[in-house]
């Protein structure tokens, strides 16, 4: 234990290896080797969670974890566990674990499962690499690796829609990656370094060449903005909904879009440093772009009937909360931005878990088909509701905590207009998340058989019948009492049977209840808010 905790390259490398090795082991497995694949996957995910906890403890004790290898003359590949990376690695490791459990339940049949899980693990490898990258070059390499490893996941189903989505995805992300590469190369050429956390070098460069640094910043943000789905660069995201639910969950919560937003945070705070970015007049324009994205994403989400598309546009909007918070210079807003990395992750992952469960078990893919599901699957739909309320920012969910921090931060920094953006977005979020929630609990069940696209599996109609039976109002008073006891007793005996596969439901329960618990105890030590504030205090101390 002491050896692991001690400083050095072991932990960062081990964190990458705990998903790289499973990937390499899984690829050669035949599709039917369900048990082996499951064991490898879960073991890797569990070990990673343990390692992250060890890392966090060590970091608290002041240890430095760094793995360095020379790559090109003058350029090293660096993996280093700084405070912001550890927060992101923690989120990735945790949600990777739950999503692996979910994916095992979701892909319980079908072909190419070894391919899927192999790339799934590679995708997480890339995310961990992005998280721990100690300089922009390392970041870029893993960022491109992420692009490449996600493509097979997006097109997994192999149908025309998925392929089209995959092509669009590649076009956007490869172009974005190229722009990022251009920015990185330029920066290396101008400053001689791209290391995170050495902002004084860039500050020296800025005195002579402020225009160049501005241009590089724009390139970097544009490159990252593709994955972070900033307005105008977001077009691939709603199409990528063709991917299977676990992929969407991972894509939206930790991997792809989050990598973009995380990159923006690091460029502002670890590469340029907020004071320099502010001095170069870069932050206000970025905040305006983020604000526009927030409102645009919410407005577009309003018009989607397809559940996953609605969630996708909601992601467009929510991601920009992080960018917005990162581009406002105050303790509270930076806290909000960093905490929202986690908050948005657990909320969105829950929503996609449930969307996947509904599509998988019942063939429900549309908002208009959600009626009456609350009685049918109360636990699952309670988690959906919690996450949706979190997205709106209803207290005491974590989404509210983000909003409060961002709002107070903006007011502190004198950017009162941000509060108006937050409030408009809250109203829009309410307009597209409250109706589904109300429909789930108070709406009448929709008859899927009349629906052309209702691909309900065998279990679907039976479940629906059960729900309708529970809903019937018997005529006589005595009959009512009897039926009432029946209905009251039913959940006890068949709750888990009704909720469906625990492999699918338990991850949703874990993340969904976190939305509430982490919100109610937001002031507790080690809550995302508390953690984020500790990091933000250090960042803000560096401000002039």
């Amino acid at each position, binding site marked *: 234990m002491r050896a692991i905790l001690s400083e050095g390259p072991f932990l960062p490398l081990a964190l990458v290896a705990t998903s790289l090795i499973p990937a390499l082991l899984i690829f050669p497995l035949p599709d039917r080797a369900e048990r082996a694949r499951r064991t490898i996957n879960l073991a890797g995910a569990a070990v990673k969670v343990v390692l992250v906890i060890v890392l966090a403890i060590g970091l608290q004790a002041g240890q430095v974890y760094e793995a360095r290898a020379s790559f090109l003359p003058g350029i090293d590949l660096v993996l280093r566990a700084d405070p912001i990376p550890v927060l992101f690695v923690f989120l990735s490791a945790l949600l990777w674990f739950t999503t692996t459990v979910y994916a095992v339940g979701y892909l319980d049949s079908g072909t190419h499962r070894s391919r899927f899980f192999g790339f799934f693990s590679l995708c997480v490898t890339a995310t961990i690499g992005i998280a721990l990258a100690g300089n922009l070059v390392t970041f870029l390499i893993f960022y491109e690796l992420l692009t490449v490893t996600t493509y097979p996941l997006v097109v997994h189903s192999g149908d025309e829609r998925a392929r089209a989505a995959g*092509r*669009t995805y590649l*076009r*956007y992300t490869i*172009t974005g990656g*190229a*722009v990022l*590469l*251009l920015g990185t*190369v*330029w920066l*290396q*050429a*101008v400053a001689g370094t791209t290391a995170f956390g050495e902002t004084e070098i860039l500050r020296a460069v800025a005195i002579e060449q402020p225009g160049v640094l501005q241009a590089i910043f724009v390139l970097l943000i544009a490159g990252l903005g593709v994955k972070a789905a900033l307005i105008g*660069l977001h*077009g691939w995201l709603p199409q990528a909904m063709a991917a299977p639910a676990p992929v969407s969950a991972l894509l939206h919560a930790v991997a792809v879009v989050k990598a973009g937003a995380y990159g923006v945070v690091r460029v502002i705070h670890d590469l340029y440093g907020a004071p320099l970015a502010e001095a170069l007049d870069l932050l206000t324009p970025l905040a305006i772009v983020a604000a526009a994205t927030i409102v645009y994403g919410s*407005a577009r989400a*309003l*018009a989607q009937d397809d559940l996953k598309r609605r969630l996708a546009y909601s992601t467009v909007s929510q991601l920009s909360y992080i960018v917005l918070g990162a581009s406002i210079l105050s303790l509270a807003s930076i806290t909000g931005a960093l905490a929202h990395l986690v908050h948005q992750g657990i909320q969105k992952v829950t929503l996609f878990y449930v969307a996947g469960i509904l599509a998988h078990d019942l063939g429900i893919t549309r908002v208009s088909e959600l009626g009456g599901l609350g*009685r049918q699957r*109360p636990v699952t739909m309670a988690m959906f509701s919690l996450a949706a*309320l979190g997205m709106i920012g*209803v*207290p*005491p969910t974590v989404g*509210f*905590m983000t*909003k*409060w921090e961002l*709002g*107070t931060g903006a*007011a*502190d920094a004198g950017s*009162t207009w941000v*509060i*108006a953006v*937050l*409030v408009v977005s*809250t*109203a829009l979020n*309410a*307009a*597209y998340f*409250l109706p589904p929630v*109300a429909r789930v*609990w*108070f709406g009448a069940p929709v008859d899927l058989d009349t629906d052309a696209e209702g691909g309900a599996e065998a279990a679907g109609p039976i479940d629906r019948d059960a729900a309708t039976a529970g*809903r019937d*109002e018997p005529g006589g008073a005595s009959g009512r009492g009897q039926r*009432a*006891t029946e209905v009251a007793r039913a*959940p*006890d005996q068949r709750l888990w049977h009704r909720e469906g596969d625990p492999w699918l439901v338990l991850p949703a329960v874990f993340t969904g209840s976190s939305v509430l618990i982490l919100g*109610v*105890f*937001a*002031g*507790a*030590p080690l809550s995302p*808010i508390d953690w984020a504030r500790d990091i933000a205090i250090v960042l803000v101390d560096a401000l002039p």
Partner: protein
Amino acid sequence: MSPLAIVLLVLAPLTPLLVGVVGAPRAGRRRWWLAVAAPLPALVLAGSGLDGELHVPVVLLGATLEIDGIRRLLLAAVGLVWLLAAASGRSLLDGPTSPLAAWGLAASGSLGVVLAGDTITLYTAFAVMTFAAYPLVIHRGTDDARRAGRAMIAMAVLGEALLLSGLLLVTVGAGDPALGTVRAAIAGGEVGVLGPALVTAGFAVKAGLVPLHLWLPLAHPAAPVPASAVLSGAMIKAGVIGWLLVLPVAGPAGAPAVIGTALLVVGTVTMFTGAGFGVLSSAPKVVLAYSSISQMGVLAMIAGAGLLASDPAGTTAFALAVYVLHHGLAKAVLFLAAGAAEVARRRVVLGVAGLAGLALAGAPLTSGAGAKLLAKDVLGAVPTSGGLLTTTLSVGSIATTLLVVRLLALLAAATDPASTTAADAATTGLWVLAALVALVPWAVPWVVTGEVVPVGDLGAVVEASWPIAVGLVLAASAVVLVRRRPGVARIAVPPGDLLVPLGRVGLRVSGGAIERGQQIRAAVGRWRTRGRNRVRDWELPGRLMTLDEQLTRWRPTGVAFLALAVAFAWVLRTGS
């Protein structure tokens, strides 16, 4: 702070919450006693005489719960309404689903608002109450109920948005979320006007001030009787309690005068509009809803006067709390009497409703008289316009008297004179309620705070009597008028008054945004197509506008790559 106080302070909001969360999954008829028990710890706390403040750093962003004399009085007022409504809550159980979860959450939020010691806790409790009220309103599942629910949620989201932005501004302006600090900062002028104004408006949505009252006349008749009782008796009071807690209503003047003036003006308008629409309504529960709006206008006037006048003795807070207690109980009793109209004896229904109605109008020796005496103290202290304001309040009592007469007439029409045996339990219950409405508003303030609600001298009795006499005369002449000219009787206001002429437009904008996304969707689609066509017509390839589409073709991507390659070459050349 004593351990007992801490335990009670935590249990008061937590018990209803647990009732809602734990009781809900297996809720049935037999579990409804949980709802009755839910407000009991709060009532014990109210009667305990304990003061104190509890800070729990790990909850929310550092939650604070506070209890003092005024809050105990408010807690008693709100808690009694929840207790009373739950005890008579049988009719709630007739629906397809059990409302226990929503009931518990709403009660928890409603009591939590009273105890909140910082802006975040206050907003949280307020939001929980607001959203939990939705299932109660739509409980019957009828089209009317759903329409009311939509209007309510749309208004609630508006209110939450105003409130959130206001609370953010005042919290940052004060530098601390503690409500005491916030009040002092607002009074000291350190916060500016915008934040306090937004907070005032946000709470005004809940309080139902004109023109933000639109959801109330829809929600009340649609909701089951006990839900209407808590809505009018407890939940809309959260708006007033919010003003009292966030704005420097009590204490020395110093707050932005514009807010005080606005509350006075809007309160006056609300008092008269509410009563006027109420008289012209034709269902008992709608009349009662408008009466609540009217009475909330009075409370807004008191709060506004408190902001304008210097009030070192703290009369304003006491006056507001007593008025909340008096109106909450009277209104809850009136709703329950209206709900019992079809089963209980006519005599009893009219007797109980008449008693509560007299209190509402402020007849001498009723709780209303005491509450209005206190209110007049506060209003009279407003510089330059005090006399005018107290007279306005008396004129308001005339309107209330008319409204009560209208209500009694409608109830008389609704009751069945033949009903004698069926509902002896209901009849007994109503007498208990009548005793409550007569005694509690006098007893509770004395028990809770040691302060006495004034009965007034002979002059006060006269002062309280003449508006009622005038009201009765007017009512009598109206009856005569209707006899002679039957056409007059057809003048009626549909529930939701302005919503109806504002019409479907209003609902589409507010409620429609919620559930009729289709229409907006279609409009957005048309707008987009039109935009696209326009761009195409201009032969401007629209690369900026529809970047999404353009990027889905290969050619632009190729061009982009070429450009990038050139850029790379340039960068590498200049850099090295």
